């Protein structure tokens, strides 16, 4: 397996990784999370939003950022934030606020 010619795999389906496989899934949102950085603990001891986000679209560095291109707007982060620092606002765009 170390040497030799790699076979042409178009004979069968093999996918390679990339983000946005299903497109910009941010489009799926009907509500958008908005972080109130003042309310956020800004402490590594929390990070519950990062921990619980199924899509892994929240950064782990403070100030936390949510990748709105892909966030599906499920609202788990807002629900689980112990300081209520994340607010779900209607619409796909946080500027609706």
């Amino acid at each position: 397996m170390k040497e030799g010619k790699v076979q042409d795999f178009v004979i069968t389906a093999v996918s390679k990784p990339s983000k946005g496989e299903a497109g910009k899934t941010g489009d799926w949102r009907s509500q958008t999370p908005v972080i109130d950085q003042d309310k956020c603990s800004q402490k590594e001891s929390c990070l519950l939003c990062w921990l619980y986000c199924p899509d892994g679209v929240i950064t782990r560095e403070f100030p936390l950022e949510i990748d709105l291109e892909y966030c599906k707007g499920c609202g788990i982060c807002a629900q689980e934030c112990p300081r209520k620092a994340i607010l779900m606002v209607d619409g796909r765009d946080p500027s609706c606020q």
Partner: protein
Amino acid sequence: MSDVRIITANSAAALAAKLCRVQVVSAYPITPQTPVTEELAELVESGELKAEYLTVESEHSAMASVVAASQVGARVFTASSANGLLYMHEMLHWAAGSRTPVVMACVNRGVGAPWTILNDQQDSISQRDTGWIQLYCKNSQEVIDSIIQAYKIAEQVNIPVMVCYDGFILSHTTTPVEIPSQQLVDSYLPPRPPVIGISEYTHMNVNPLILSDPRPDVDGKMAPGYMDIRYRLQQDLLSCLDVIKLADRDFHELFGRTCGGVCWGYKMTDAAHAIVSFGSLASECTLAADLLRQRGLRVGVLGVRSYRPFPKDDLVKALEAVETVTIFEKDVSYGYEGALAMDLKSALYESANHPRFSSYVAGLGGRDVLPETLADEAYRAITGEVKHAWINIKN
């Protein structure tokens, strides 16, 4: 230097797998395939064959595990029969669709219900549309030779090969079989070529969901849709007729024996009447041809070795001068007629020569077929009495 042993076809199959240095064996016992699994287990446990042996709980798992092992790069082997083969059906499609070079021995046996453990070819014929290459052996020598050739073929075209031989009739019958030396097999069959796999790519998703139409890949290049990939399989299957011929020709050069490539003829050169068959029944037909020649008829036999891909052009060419064609086969497409008869008739449609055609279903569930019977029935067909019939029916 030639090592001839008086062994069964099952022993020949197990020895062939060993000579091909298979790395993963996975199998579930079923009569009449069982001795293959036992002999391979002994070879592995004794250390003569360095391989992983999975004693799986079913044929579905046997095929699932060899396909997966093949996908990570191992040379794999399994064997089955009858209902066991049917239990694999889903996985047979998967093996071919995955383009894994799996080699399997199919020890042909009739399919229940009612139960029979004895021979016919309904089992493998029922799997002909799974995308596998199917090679049929007329004797035990062809079993060992075909399995060795099967790896050569499978690993070139990435299509699995089913080497079919008749249960009991060959599988349990001892005959002289020439066993090639390991050295010679090694020079014919190099180690399996590397596949895209764990060392080339760290991340990939094999056989994912696919759309009907092409879709751009990560770099924006268009990747095929389901139908395109399936078309590729069909194209590769059709073009591998040449690969099968070449594998046999190379084998002949090195080992001095041939299995006939995609089909073989017996006294066909001057034949006015052809008997067409496959498996051990075709060998039986050669004796019927001798008997008919004694009766003054110029009869030859055309044996089909590669049933899938179907060697349409080779068969049509071999039959271009005959007046009649008589088919004997041990299978039937229920509600119509024998599978080989249907395929050959459709092949001859485009031929300039349209010989008179008769087809027979014979020997289902182990019913004995004598050369004399074949000769008598072929005689009736040649003289124009029969179009389609089952022989030896005892109502």
